[in-house]
């Protein structure tokens, strides 16, 4: 028999052998309940191994595409990270960077030159003023949350109410899409705050993060501020929550002033 004929002969034998064994297994599966379960288990195991294998092979051949997509995504994330670093003055740890726009907000890095920490009406002065583009009622944020609101501006300095001022209230949200409430300093320690006006039907858990709501046109939305520690019911209708702030107001130095570029437009719209 030729070599080609030999190969064909062996292939035929193998095929017939497989057919006979499959037929025998089929009969066995049909006639023995134990064997039925056993074979079904085996078949499922085999099929999952085959599918898993083909999936792995398919994944291997798509690695080039996956790599390209990951690389693009990585590049996009790096760009975003740079923007945020820029926003919070984190690249050099100083405010030497120039103003930067993301969305409808302008971010101006600044350094705190003076801060009061010992009374109920704390304030701070930053080293940027109207000549740097800062206007009154701009927000001030730090690396870990809200710092204050600009009250008055000179050419090179700005006077701002610190968050640790009993007069200051910030509109916040529980989670990124939860209930909105008013956050104010608790008047006692540099990291404590109180979140009020949260309806009682809202489900909350200890450790939930509180973000800026973005409703005030002073602070951009979704800046994490702190986490929920405990809560109590007020007048049987709303919750009042103790918040642990991410920012320690006794250690702040570098901040970023946030200015809503559409503020005037929004104001005019409200006047109508």
């Amino acid at each position, binding site marked *: 028999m030729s070599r080609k004929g030999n190969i064909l002969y062996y292939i035929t034998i193998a095929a017939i052998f497989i057919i006979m064994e499959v037929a*025998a297994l089929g009969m066995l599966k049909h006639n023995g309940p134990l064997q039925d379960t056993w074979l079904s288990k085996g078949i499922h195991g085999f099929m999952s191994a085959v599918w898993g294998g083909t999936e792995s092979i398919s994944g291997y051949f798509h690695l080039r595409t996956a790599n390209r997509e990951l690389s693009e995504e990585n590049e996009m994330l790096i760009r975003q990270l740079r923007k945020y670093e820029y926003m919070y003055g984190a690249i050099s740890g100083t405010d030497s960077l120039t103003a930067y726009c993301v969305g409808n907000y302008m971010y101006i890095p600044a350094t705190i030159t003076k801060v009061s920490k010992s009374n109920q009406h704390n304030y701070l002065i930053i080293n940027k003023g109207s000549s740097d583009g800062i206007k009154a009622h701009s927000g001030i944020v730090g690396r870990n949350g809200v710092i204050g609101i600009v009250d008055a501006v000179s050419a090179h300095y700005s006077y701002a109410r610190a968050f640790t001022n009993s007069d200051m209230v910030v509109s916040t949200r529980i989670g990124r899409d939860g209930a909105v409430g008013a956050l104010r300093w608790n008047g006692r320690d540099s990291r404590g705050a109180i979140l009020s006006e949260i309806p009682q039907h809202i489900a909350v858990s200890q450790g939930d993060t509180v973000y800026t709501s973005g409703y005030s046109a002073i602070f951009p939305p979704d800046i994490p501020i702190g986490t929920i520690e405990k809560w109590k019911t007020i007048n049987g209708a709303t919750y009042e929550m103790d918040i642990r702030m991410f920012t320690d107001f006794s250690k702040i130095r570098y901040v970023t002033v946030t200015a809503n570029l559409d503020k005037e437009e929004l104001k005019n719209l409200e006047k109508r």
Partner: protein
Amino acid sequence: MKNAVQNFGIMFPLLLIAQVLISNYFNFSPYAMLSILPAMILCLPVSMNTIWVMAIAFASGLAVDFLAEGLLGLNTLALVPVALSQKTVIRVIMGEDLLTRQENFSFKKNGAAKISYALVIVQAIFFMIYIFADGAGVRPMWFNMARFAGAMACTFPLSLVTVNILSSSNN
């Protein structure tokens, strides 16, 4: 030669009937399985094509499964691999010459030792598959091993007799 084929053609079905009787009436213990089917397949003429050997094994297994008390497909499942390995076992144990000359083996020509080795191999293939499939993964390993050892020991003398009958009718 014609007589030999006729003799083999008569003896093989008779032994198949004997196997059916053994399967039906000689069930003393689960450890003492008796099956002369592997020996019968081993003794099929060397000149016979492997496809035919497998077909005969399939039909024989099915006949025993159908006529004896047991699971349909169990003997068939175990016997077809014996048929597939028949020529390889003969080649390894008896030598290539036997296959080249297409001669059938016998105690007289090849000796009891070689035939015993070949029988042990085909019996082992048969019982391993049979016991594994019969247990369906629910019986403990020690039970399967004990059953395998028991079946090998009980069947071996009977297989020697089978080979003696078939090889003498074959030659």
